[in-house]
């Protein structure tokens, strides 16, 4: 009987268990997570903070961790080292876990830039339920918050805090919100909605100093921006970016670039050791090389591929690409693949804009390599499917800008293949 161990208890682990159980109903599976909470939906922690989602609905993967799957969950335990020769993991309580096949799904951690005063009370990150607990305690005493970073996590945090009635200022270093996902035009629409909901945006700035409060220097009273301007606040959320948690893999001697390098089977440089999710640097469908993507759906999909191969399957990871569906401040938006490579002549960019809505499609060699939709998003999956399959769209590309774009606008061979795939 094979013993599988998964380190990390989030989307990658859920995919890993799904993949393993597809081929091996009997092997034992141990999941080690350094969080004490049962596996939950990380992307929904903002909704959990402002009460849109209760703790029961926040649970993730309960179907996968159900009893029949007999997964042993070791919560609140950190793996501190791996001995690849002996196939043993050392835990922080001194316990040793042996394994036959290992999946590293350790995810990413917030990257927090050093700044003066960041040790004051009220300085938080926005990554896990521990952070949410900390923020929840600070909120009743807070009236104003500064969010450093206008990316996915920063906007998520800003929206939740605005919903709780705090005055929020987002400080973004680059020119516009969500700039890794959206171009300026698309971002403008979301920025306008954010302002309506009471979130202010300062661009081209960073936070230099976190100030103490008058009468209580331990607590936060404001920040000083790179321009020298001062913003009063009681709470600072740092959401500048994330970095893969590769420490364990690095200590074990696995090949690492930015993330843990894996092949098309999600296997690391050492046989029988796999990695997936935010920590893995895996095949990039559009770039052709390998890249890390901190994307929830890709973590679960990569986990499934890894799990299947760990349990004797032979399937290839189809390749990842950036993808985000956004729901911020009431504006539905979707962005996938390459965003704005307009500087290079290899790309063709098609776009259409109507009041409050936006559609942009980026083509390379008659294939969709990126797209952005704001507001009118119902057709997003059709374009996503063309991107995912790298279908040649030269015969119908003008139709992709049609305001009522639907399945009927796709050519017959695409329609037929899509249905065959769905029912296979």
């Amino acid at each position, binding site marked *: 009987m094979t013993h599988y161990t998964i380190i990390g208890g989030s989307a990658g682990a859920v995919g890993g268990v799904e993949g393993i159980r597809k081929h091996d109903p009997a092997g034992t599976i141990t999941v080690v997570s350094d969080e004490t909470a049962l596996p939950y939906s990380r992307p929904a922690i903002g909704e959990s903070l402002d009460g849109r989602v209760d703790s029961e609905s926040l649970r993730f993967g309960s179907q996968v961790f159900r009893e029949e799957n007999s997964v042993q969950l070791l919560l609140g335990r950190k793996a501190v080292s791996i001995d690849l020769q002996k196939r043993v993991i050392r835990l922080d309580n001194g316990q040793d876990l042996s394994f036959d096949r290992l999946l590293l799904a350790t995810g990413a951690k917030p990257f927090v830039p050093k700044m003066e005063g960041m040790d004051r009370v009220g300085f938080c990150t926005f990554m896990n339920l521990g952070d949410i607990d900390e923020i929840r305690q600070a909120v009743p005493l807070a009236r104003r918050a500064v969010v450093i970073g206008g990316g996915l996590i920063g906007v998520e945090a800003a929206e939740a805090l605005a919903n709780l009635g705090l005055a929020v200022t987002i400080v973004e270093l680059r020119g516009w919100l969500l700039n890794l996902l959206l171009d300026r035009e698309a971002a403008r629409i979301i920025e306008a909605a954010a302002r309506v909901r009471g979130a202010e945006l300062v661009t081209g700035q960073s936070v230099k100093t976190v100030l103490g409060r008058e009468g209580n220097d331990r607590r936060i009273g404001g920040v000083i921006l790179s321009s020298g301007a001062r913003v009063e606040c009681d709470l600072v959320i740092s959401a500048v970016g994330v970095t893969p948690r590769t420490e364990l893999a690095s200590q074990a001697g696995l090949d690492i670039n930015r993330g843990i390098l894996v092949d098309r089977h999600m296997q690391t440089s050492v046989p029988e050791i796999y990695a997936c999710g935010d920590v893995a640097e895996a095949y990039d469908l559009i770039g052709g090389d390998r890249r890390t993507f901190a994307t929830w759906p890709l973590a679960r999909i990569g986990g499934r591929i890894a799990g299947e191969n760990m349990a004797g399957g032979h399937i290839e990871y189809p390749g990842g690409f950036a993808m985000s569906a956004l*729901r911020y401040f009431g504006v539905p938006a979707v962005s996938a693949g390459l965003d704005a490579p307009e500087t290079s002549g290899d790309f063709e960019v098609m776009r259409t804009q109507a009041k409050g809505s936006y559609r942009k499609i980026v083509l390379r060699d008659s294939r969709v390599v990126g797209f952005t939709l704001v507001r009118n998003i119902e057709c997003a999956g059709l374009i996503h499917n063309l991107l995912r399959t790298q279908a040649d769209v030269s015969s119908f590309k003008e139709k992709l800008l049609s305001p009522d774009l639907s399945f009927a606008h796709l050519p017959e061979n695409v329609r037929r293949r899509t249905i065959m795939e769905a029912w296979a």
Partner: protein
Amino acid sequence: MKRIVPHEDLCMGCTLCQVHCTLAHSRTKDLVKAYRRETPRTLPRIKPAIDKPLSIGIQCHHCSDPPCVAACLTGAMSLDQESGKVVHDIEKCIACWTCVMVCPFGALTVSDEQKTPLKCDFCPDLEVPACVANCPNEALTLEEVADQ
């Protein structure tokens, strides 16, 4: 398993599938009330995809390996192993639109009236789904399709 099969050569784009889908999911089951007096208004979970002269009734195809289930951020979309149906738990849904982003049919309905996306539930209380039962041209049929 039994699947709703669209026949694009037979569909005339009459949109009756939409009308009957709306009716079947309405609270009153009364056509006039469903369209005029129910708030929030009941919305159809099937849409006629039209690029003249072609038209096809499009709804959730309950994929055997559903991309929406794999991508769902909260686990609100799940595949019921016994029935083979894709089930949407709106309690867990945060309306992040990830399912909309990955559905290869563009089958989900997004609206201002409803907070979450809507999809075909195969009319659990009916023997034959309303769209199939009421398609005048048999452009939607209920058929046993063997899994490969």
